[in-house]
């Protein structure tokens, strides 16, 4: 029993060692700085442009947040691609795995460390984006206007980020080149899956099983309504297509995150240096 406890303690210490190592790599390669700069600049654009063009902000804090978070999906996919795209494939392409895999630690600890570092870095970027948006809401509408729904949207973004990192990490474990694994994951999430979702919706089929479709709950949870008699008509309400169910959406994101993470770790552990 004691030896199991010691083994587990060693596994955990190796895991944290790998997470620290991977995060340092991301810092040294300026990846975190680049994406954090994006995470600060994008919400600032939504804050600065309306007054500059003589426009008004949205009427409510949630409506403002909903507009502001228009690019959060893109930012999550960019972060996931940058941090997880070459996590495993990079070790094989650059042959750095020869030295890394021969260290006295389990492959599981190494690979999970890579995944966890990519996930933490992506979560950090999302947190910055939401923090900047929150400060803007506080400045425009007051701190009291920050709603529970905004917090829920933040948690949904973290869950979606886990599924995005898992998808890209999975491709990193099966692809040989870093560029291929990064691009396949990026285009799958930004282009292919949204197109499939669009086609299915056009055919009157709800694409509830696609993770990109489920990501809509991040902004849907903020739920806003506008208008008045005469300012909107039924035509604006028709043709909106499907809207993901909250619980199904969370379930789908969880399923992608956990299943692809576990499959990815299994594949990465079995992969051999050529």
């Amino acid at each position: 029993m004691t030896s199991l406890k010691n083994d587990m303690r060693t596994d955990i210490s190796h895991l944290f060692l790998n997470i620290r190592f991977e995060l340092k790599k991301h810092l040294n390669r300026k990846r975190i700085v680049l994406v954090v700069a994006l995470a600060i600049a994008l919400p600032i654009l939504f804050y600065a442009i309306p007054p500059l063009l003589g426009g008004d902000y949205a009427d409510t804090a949630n409506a403002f947040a909903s507009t502001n978070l228009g690019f959060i999906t893109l930012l999550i996919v960019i972060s996931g691609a940058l941090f997880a795209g070459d996590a495993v494939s990079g070790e094989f392409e650059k042959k750095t795995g020869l030295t890394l895999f021969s260290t006295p630690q389990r492959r599981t600890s190494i690979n999970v460390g890579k995944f966890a570092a990519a996930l933490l870095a992506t979560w950090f970027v999302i947190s910055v984006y939401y923090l900047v948006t929150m400060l803007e809401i506080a400045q425009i509408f007051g701190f009291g206007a920050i709603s529970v729904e905004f917090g829920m949207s933040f948690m949904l973004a973290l869950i979606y980020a886990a599924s995005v990192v898992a998808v890209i990490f999975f491709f990193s474990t099966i692809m040989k080149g870093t560029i291929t694994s990064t691009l396949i994951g990026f285009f799958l999430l930004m282009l292919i899956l949204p197109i499939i979702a669009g086609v299915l919706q056009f055919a009157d089929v709800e694409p509830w099983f696609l993770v990109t479709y489920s990501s809509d709950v991040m902004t849907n949870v903020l739920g806003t309504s506008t208008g008045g008699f005469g300012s909107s008509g039924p035509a604006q309400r028709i043709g909106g297509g499907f809207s993901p169910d909250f619980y199904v959406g969370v379930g789908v994101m969880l399923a992608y995150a956990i299943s692809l993470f576990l499959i990815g770790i299994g594949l990465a552990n079995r992969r051999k240096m050529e």
Partner: protein
Amino acid sequence: MMKTRYVNTTFAAAIAVGLVLFAILGMVPNASAQNVGISGMTFSGANPSDGDVITISVTVHNNATFAISNVTLAFYVDYVEIENITGINLEANSSSNQEIDWTTESGTHTISAMLRVNDMPLPDTEISSEIEVTLGDPGTLIGALILIVAVVFITPLVPSIFEKLKGQNSRRRE
């Protein structure tokens, strides 16, 4: 002189007839608007969640001394009509409770109701109320995040546990 008096009398009569006609024509909608109205909009659920079916109830009243028939009550969500109740008949000085069921959608919505007589809306009868429909619950999200973190941190321990169960003591790293 006679001609001038005749013109004045005709002119006065025309104005009088015009005023009477104006009063008669204008009386119908004014009477409806002033005597018929909607009050007391209520919802069956205080804090509904997305997808819940709630009942929207209103009271239609007729304060006039005459009966009114064939009134239509229209319900709107965010100023888009979702349902109407036709053929409402009200006796003099009476009221009637009317309700519809609505499947909620997340967000803050303005629920309105308005009366129509002969397909003519009576804007003075509009009654509105806001309702906040929540989407999901924070507990589910916290649980999901804990699950993700748990899976990520438990996975590296699995090989050690399996080795222990199989009775293997040798570790590759040792």
